[in-house]
């Protein structure tokens, strides 16, 4: 369907231009009126179209002139951001949007669905993508100049895969987008240190197992229902809950997706991959890849299988919640032991994805609000933190936390975003990190999961353990003067880099504070609507 899919897309590009007019004519409206009232149902494809154009244009223009690659990505990502903002607004006010690819009606054809949850996640992707794109303009040129064009080409392909995963309403189509995003992620992760290809290859092997398990699960579902459309399958499944094959399908899918989301104990690929990849690659993959996989897990458990059956069957909810909580503790403890800032953040990623897993496993409305909020919060925080790591590497050539001593005074602006994001990771009010954990804690209390609740609070202390240690090193210590020599031996002047490097982590870091301050409005306006219908009825009360 790779070629088949492209053919459909090409048909679409023609069609979406013509469709407005056809639509208007069908309604008997004045010819041309269609141009004045844009058809909102085209929004799902408008999100993907700039990315498809980018996949072709970025390498093409990049071959002509290197700098054009970055400029093209900026345009593409701005278009993506505009479309996803419009989509979220439209979806929140007027309900879900369905786009039939090439006009084939589901369940036979593939549809793109924008409901509040997918529109929200697409917006998160677009915002992080914009920030990383601004940052990458200078960072890739400074760190991996010979890889500039491939980097941006792969980045656009990654975004295409991720947006497709989020929006598609078809189980098999999701697998294809899954692999598109994974393959570009493997390539991006191979750009970096000398060892990057090794860790990337190991990620490839494990990621393929994950995706294959998902595909096997799709196979079981197809055998059982004869359909691949998510909404259609969700309707057919309740009659099949006694069939043991459905259990197998669920287990395969959850195992495969957990591997891609790096839920404990299937996180083994993550630390090396994040550490050895270049900081720019990591700052686009770390916030998005695992989070979108967690989103797909939510989509499968809550929207396809139905959380009531899926979570209680085999005690799967408890298994996910407990393993995720173990991952939170384990990731935090390992993060404390690290001397390399990137590896520390990689382990902390495992811990933070664990929080999302705890929310998914607990499965009441409060815990799910926490999990969905944390998808956004962690994306903003982790991206900011990894970008700051990259800046320190570029400005000082140091790869160890020891080298960070006193840098807060030498590079004040660089570390503002880092400080905010670190405080948000710890979960102090009024940052956004506090609120996602707050909702998680309320959810655990409502589920009477008291041990998990105690562990959740304890894990906050562990996170404080490693982030305050770093903040103390950055701000409270005097820099040692001999450290002013870079790893290459050349004298390095320690100062803030240019605006394009400082601004993105700063914006995301301050964003964590702003998101925390507007949290109450945000939860009621967006997150509550993004919950599955069954959980919406539950409400946020006791």
């Amino acid at each position, binding site marked *: 369907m*790779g070629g*088949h899919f492209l053919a459909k897309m090409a048909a679409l590009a023609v069609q979406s231009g013509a469709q407005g007019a056809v639509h208007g004519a069908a309604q008997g409206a004045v010819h041309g009126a269609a141009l004045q009232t844009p058809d909102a149902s085209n929004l799902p494809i408008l999100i993907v179209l700039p990315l498809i154009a980018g996949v072709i244009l970025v390498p093409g223009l990049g071959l002509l002139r290197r700098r054009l690659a970055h400029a093209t990505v900026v345009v593409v990502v701005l278009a993506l951001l505009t479309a996803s903002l419009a989509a979220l607004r439209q979806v929140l006010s007027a309900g879900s949007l369905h786009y039939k690819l090439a006009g084939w009606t589901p369940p036979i054809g593939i549809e793109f669905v924008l409901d509040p949850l997918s529109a929200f996640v697409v917006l998160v992707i677009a915002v992080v993508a914009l920030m990383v794109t601004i940052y990458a303009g200078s960072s890739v040129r400074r760190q991996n100049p010979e890889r500039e064009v491939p980097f941006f080409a792969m980045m656009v392909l990654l975004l295409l895969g991720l947006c497709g995963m989020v929006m598609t309403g078809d189980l*098999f189509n999701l697998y294809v987008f899954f*692999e598109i995003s994974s393959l570009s992620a493997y390539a991006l992760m191979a750009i970096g240190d000398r060892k990057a290809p090794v860790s990337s290859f190991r990620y490839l092997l494990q990621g393929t197992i994950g995706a294959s398990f998902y595909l096997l699960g799709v*196979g079981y579902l197809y055998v059982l229902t004869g359909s691949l459309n998510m909404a259609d399958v969700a309707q057919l499944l309740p009659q099949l809950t006694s069939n043991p094959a459905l259990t197998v399908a669920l287990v395969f899918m959850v195992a495969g997706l957990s591997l891609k989301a790096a839920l404990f104990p299937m996180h083994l690929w993550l630390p090396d991959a994040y550490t050895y990849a270049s900081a720019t690659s990591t700052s686009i993959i770390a916030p998005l890849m695992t989070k979108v996989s967690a989103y797909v897990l939510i989509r499968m458990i809550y929207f396809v299988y139905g959380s009531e059956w899926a979570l209680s069957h085999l005690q799967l909810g408890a298994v996910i919640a407990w393993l995720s909580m173990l991952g939170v503790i384990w990731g935090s403890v390992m993060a404390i032991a690290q001397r390399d800032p990137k590896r520390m953040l990689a382990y902390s990623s495992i811990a933070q994805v664990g929080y999302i897993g705890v929310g998914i496993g607990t499965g009441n409305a409060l815990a799910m609000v926490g999990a969905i909020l944390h998808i956004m919060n962690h994306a903003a925080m982790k991206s900011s933190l990894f970008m700051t790591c990259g800046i320190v590497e570029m400005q000082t050539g140091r*790869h160890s936390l020891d080298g960070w001593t006193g840098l807060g005074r030498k590079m004040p602006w660089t570390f503002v975003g880092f400080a905010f994001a670190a405080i948000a990771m710890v979960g102090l009010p009024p940052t956004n990190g506090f609120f996602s954990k707050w909702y998680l804690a309320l959810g655990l209390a409502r589920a009477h999961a008291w041990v998990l609740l105690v562990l959740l609070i304890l894990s906050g202390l562990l996170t404080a353990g490693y982030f305050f240690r770093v903040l103390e090193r950055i701000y409270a210590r005097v820099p040692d003067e001999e450290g002013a020599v870079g*790893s290459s031996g050349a004298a390095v002047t320690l100062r803030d880099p240019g605006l394009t490097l400082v601004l993105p982590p700063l914006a995301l870091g301050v964003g964590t504070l702003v998101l925390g301050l507007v949290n109450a409005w945000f939860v009621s306006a967006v997150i509550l609507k993004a919950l599955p219908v069954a959980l919406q009825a539950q409400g946020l009360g006791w």
Partner: protein
Amino acid sequence: MLIDKWPYFATVLMLLIGLYGMVVKRNLVKKLIGMNIFQSAIILFFIVYAWKDKATVPVYDAGLGDVPAHYINPIPHGLMLTAIVVSVATTGVALALLSLIYKRFGTLEEDELLRELRTDRERG
């Protein structure tokens, strides 16, 4: 009864052989071969499901009438064509990574690579 389902058992066996190769073999190329066997097993699983004895391509034939048993289900075949494309692409990326690894480290044995990864603490 169960013996009639032997093709499914064959796919499970292939799946396990592939997993064994990926987990136990210490050479990265052998791991990649294991991955390919693993993916092929899943492709075969879909095809085995779609197979019908004495049925033909799903194009309407007046002589056969509209009896579903006379036509093979085309959807799993279409899906697996895509899955084959995906698997070829994955293999391509993996081979590109392997050639990069070999150029840099001069070996594809996992033990030697791991030793290199561990001893060389300094990144870069």
